[in-house]
């Protein structure tokens, strides 16, 4: 219920995450809903970088249910983004251990023949080092910008920029895509 939302919002601005977390820890359900609104794409992106698309949405809800249950265990509100994404990673890894290998192609919300292309890119993304795969999924799938990724993962903007740049370079190599500079080089 939004009427219960007790967070002071700055003049026309957005309440800092720490205030929203503190309110959620006091049991304010609207504040927790606000955390979901701000972080659901980051959680889904982190999960999708590990598990098939068809399971990612359910695991995203699971992650928030676990976070809600453990909110009072979080001692530093500023650590919320990293803490939440750690729950998401652990949930994804537990799920991977328990599941049988499945073909995610039928679950992709993209019609054939593009779904095969999407599946190929996902496989290439998941084969990258973890820091690169998560950052690139957040940028390319969830549509977050570099500054938003930094804010929602707890990484520094510099680290996010490096992850995006190096990850994209590796992804291009693995997908056999030439950079614009390479493509324009005379042969």
């Amino acid at each position, binding site marked *: 219920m939004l009427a219960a939302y007790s967070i002071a919002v700055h003049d026309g601005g957005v309440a800092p995450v720490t205030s929203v977390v503190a309110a959620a820890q006091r049991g304010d359900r609207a504040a*927790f809903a606000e955390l979901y609104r701000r972080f659901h794409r980051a*959680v889904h992106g982190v999960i999708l970088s590990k598990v098939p698309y068809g399971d990612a949405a359910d695991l995203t809800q699971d992650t928030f*249910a676990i976070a809600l249950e453990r909110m009072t265990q979080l001692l530093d509100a500023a650590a919320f983004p990293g803490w939440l994404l750690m729950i998401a990673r652990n949930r994804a890894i537990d799920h991977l251990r328990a599941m049988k290998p499945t073909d995610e192609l039928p679950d992709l919300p993209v019609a054939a023949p593009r779904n095969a*292309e999407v599946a190929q*890119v996902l496989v290439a993304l998941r084969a990258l080092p973890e820091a690169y795969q998560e950052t690139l999924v957040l940028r*390319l799938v969830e549509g977050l910008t570099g500054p938003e990724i930094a804010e929602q993962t707890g990484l520094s903007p510099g680290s996010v920029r490096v992850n995006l740049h190096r990850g994209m370079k590796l992804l291009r190599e693995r997908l056999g895509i030439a950079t614009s500079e390479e493509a324009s080089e005379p042969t």
Partner: protein
Amino acid sequence: MTKPDDYLWDGSGEADPEVAKLEQLLRPLAHDRPMDEVRMRRPKRRRAPWIVAGIAAIAAAAVLVLVLRRGDTPVAADCAVW
């Protein structure tokens, strides 16, 4: 003047055609579902691992006692011929 990786960083500047193509390809997979209020109202109660281990140990002990008691039953009683 924009840097070459500005588009990758925040979508500003001249679009990198390959990044834009990947975005277009993958964007339908973005998460847009609302929070599942029902699931949030009833968070999962998972038993602590030591409770699960305790229950398993008690069950194993009970099975063991039953098996041993059966072993104690005199053979003659089972094979008695009337």
